[in-house]
């Protein structure tokens, strides 16, 4: 037996549920993972709420992309990194952290087959790391277009959120976004949300 996601969300929000729900959670050997996943789901919902409140048109595009993400077994590992890691290295050095922990911190894996909203607190440049070149569709403000994983991207607060859709597989630039996604082997997405 297990708790459904809505009940877990009610619990994460600190709202009233029956004792029996807590007993079910405590009896579950995976209780810590279940609870952590419920916290992360709520954090993503809260992020989307902020997104939908200010940028509904882009939030709609995000939902479209979300409905079309998929994962193929052969999807290459891809991540993005902060282009200027020296700030973190400096912080790490000052706080006595080993540098290799910083590398782990700034290397963010792109979620094939799913999507994520990431807060951006200050302008940053990001670059991508991938074992082969893949196509990336971008959308922000009234702009849409394509880049590849060999390009970098400058995230600016005043440009609002940026939706990046990562596509593994052949991309025919003459087709529209939806057709490209349909024909792709794997699709994953990230929204960088300025806060």
């Amino acid at each position, binding site marked *: 037996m297990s708790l459904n996601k809505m009940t877990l969300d009610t*619990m994460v*929000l600190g709202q009233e549920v029956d004792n029996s729900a*807590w007993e079910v959670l405590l009896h579950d050997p995976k209780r810590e993972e279940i609870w952590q996943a419920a916290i992360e789901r709520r954090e993503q919902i809260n992020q989307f709420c902020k997104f939908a409140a200010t940028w509904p048109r882009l939030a709609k595009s995000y939902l479209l992309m979300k409905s079309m993400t998929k994962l193929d077994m052969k999807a290459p590992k891809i991540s993005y990194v902060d282009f200027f890691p020296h700030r973190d290295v400096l912080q790490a050095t000052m706080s006595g952290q080993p540098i290799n922990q910083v590398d782990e911190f700034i290397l963010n894996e792109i979620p094939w087959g799913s999507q994520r909203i990431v807060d951006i607190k200050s302008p940053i440049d990001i670059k991508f790391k991938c074992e082969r070149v893949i196509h990336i569709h971008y959308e922000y403000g009234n702009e849409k277009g394509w880049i590849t994983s060999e390009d970098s991207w400058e995230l600016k607060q005043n440009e609002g959120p940026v939706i990046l859709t990562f596509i593994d597989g052949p991309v025919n630039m003459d087709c529209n976004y939806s057709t490209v996604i349909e024909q792709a082997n794997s699709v994953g997405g990230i929204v960088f949300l300025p806060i």
Partner: protein
Amino acid sequence: MTDTLLPITDISKEGRLSYIDKYKVNVQLTLLQSMDSLEDDFATNDQFMNAFGSHDSAVDMIINLFLADGFNLEKAPARDLSLFSMPHYWLKYKTGGRLNTCVSYFGISEEVIDTELNGDPIDDHIEYLAEGLREFNQCVAPDMVGYWLMANKKLLNENGALNQFNLCYEDVEQKGSEGKKTRYKADACFRYLYLFLNIKPKLIDNGYIDAYENKYFVRGKNIPQYTSDQSEDHTKKKNVREVIRQIIDKIQEVDCECTVLQACLIRTMARKSLVDLYEFEPLYKREFGDKLKSLKQIQTACAEELI
């Protein structure tokens, strides 16, 4: 965050109509996203679907509930767009709170569950702990519950009655980021014990017990130090620390009369590093560090009585 979430300022029917008129797309998107995120893949008896049908029909029905004459926003858990990110609230509202259980059990009848949960006396400690956790969760950030679950893993995995101390604990307090994790686990256990042992009536009021509770038992942001968002001056900080010292003393007094379950919880909490987390003054650091350390011995007295 509230300002950016389109607050609902006019709670009258006209106010709600005008809100939907202005922000219908935002509301629809929020509802769709939250329903999608909280939908279970293999639900065989989904109460939400039974009540609202498809996601599209649910969006229309929930907006209609929000606009209905009888809807009272004062009783709702939020007064901004986030109200539409809580499909479970609308399910409860629509069914008038008549949900038999908030729990979805896949492929198992509720009758069987009742027997499993209530008919097995050997798991009484889980029942007590769950009751405590329900109360704890309402007043602390969700990560604190996560830390508590981590800290009490062995106790929670224990099957059967706790009639002897066969629980093995990690005594080493670790350094670095693991050290921080250890402290937050101890902090979560300390706060849980405060409620579980009902320490408050045993304290001598220095005028700052409420300040202590407002700091550590009011939900703030889910980020370290997991306290409520309030400012405090030097005097308040100092006096709140005095309350914490009193709590440690009261937990020590529980020592000789505690149950096995209480002893397990105290032992898990007893970490010297709490004096650093709570920023004890140098004068008290050693004394209370030693007191916390001595609480680890609580197992011996109880275990000897029981064996």
